[in-house]
């Protein structure tokens, strides 16, 4: 089935509560309006999608998006919009897509200071998410990046993952770090 969203500013809103519930149930996409921590998919509210998720669902053909005036927005147009507004959108999207395609539940890690929070089963099911920090790597990385990611992840888990990636087809490599005392 196709879900229907409206692009309002930096967000895509699925207004129909039935569609909202189904889309959330499908893979913990989005956030129901006014419910910071949904217990389950039994809410009765519109669903708010970030642009990263919205582009992913649109490209999969699961989401059709219109603007405030009802005019259709193609997945490419949506991605162009996201690229304009979100710093490092292409890198973040690339990692998001790979993780979702592999079956992980990838959600915003923003409230933890990370790019993503990744679950194997889902929020409320897994004990705590793994935090992913997307890093653009040339040939080199400043160890400061590792320290900073560690500090941001500290309150959630001892372990965090750096997704080190580059533009285009450059493969993404993942390094997991765990704070340790020898």
């Amino acid at each position, binding site marked *: 089935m196709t879900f229907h969203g409206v692009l309002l*500013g930096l*967000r895509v809103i699925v207004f129909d509560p039935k569609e909202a519930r189904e889309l959330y149930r499908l893979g913990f996409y989005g*956030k129901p*309006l*006014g419910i910071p921590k949904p217990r389950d998919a039994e809410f009765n509210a519109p669903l*708010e999608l970030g642009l990263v998720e919205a582009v992913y669902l649109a490209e999969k053909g699961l989401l059709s998006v219109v603007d*405030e005036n009802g005019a259709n927005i193609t997945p490419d147009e949506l991605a162009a919009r996201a690229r304009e507004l979100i710093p490092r959108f292409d890198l973040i999207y690339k990692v998001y897509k790979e993780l979702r395609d592999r079956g992980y539940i990838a959600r*915003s890690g*923003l409230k933890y200071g990370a790019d993503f929070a990744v679950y194997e089963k889902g929020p409320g099911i897994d004990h705590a998410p793994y935090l992913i920090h997307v890093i653009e790597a040339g040939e080199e990385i400043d160890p400061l990046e590792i320290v900073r990611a560690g500090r941001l992840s500290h309150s959630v888990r001892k372990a965090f993952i750096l997704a080190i990636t580059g533009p285009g087809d450059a493969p993404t490599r993942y390094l997991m770090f765990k704070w340790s005392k020898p």
Partner: protein
Amino acid sequence: MTLEILLVDHKTLELQILRGADEALKQLPYTSIEKLHPLEALYLLYTGTAVLVDSVGRQYSFEDLIKAYSRINPYAWVEFEVYLDLRKRGRLPVPGPRPHSLLLRRRKREPRYTHYILVLEENRPVKLATLYSFVEEAAKNSWEPLLAIVDRYGDITYYTALVFRPGLTRLSREGDSEP
């Protein structure tokens, strides 16, 4: 439904209470009864306490109104998110003196405002001059300035702001570290 709102102008979104002013007073401060702000109408529509019609009797849903409001205000959705969040916390915000701002009272019948809220959105840069003048305007009126920052997934974080002057502003002596 006892509460009916009239959409006077499709462009400016001028709104009036057509029927049920008594009911409206249970929901809103008396200052809002004469001229309803789009955020207040959105809230009444969202909670199912009112219906919205135009002069020829056409009915408008919450979705219709938020789309229309988005056309004239790019912050429409996030402002509503903050308004809704404050209502859920039992506060009664009213639209503030500057764009994307709200004012709060301690209690519904109290004339004085206590908090001045500026709605900001991640990835929408804000002018520093705007931040400063907001904090100063709040100080002048003895309101506590609050930034309501909505991240790109709809989570809201509130921050009190004040201008710090090295050598003049005293740092608080007691610790206020998190528990």
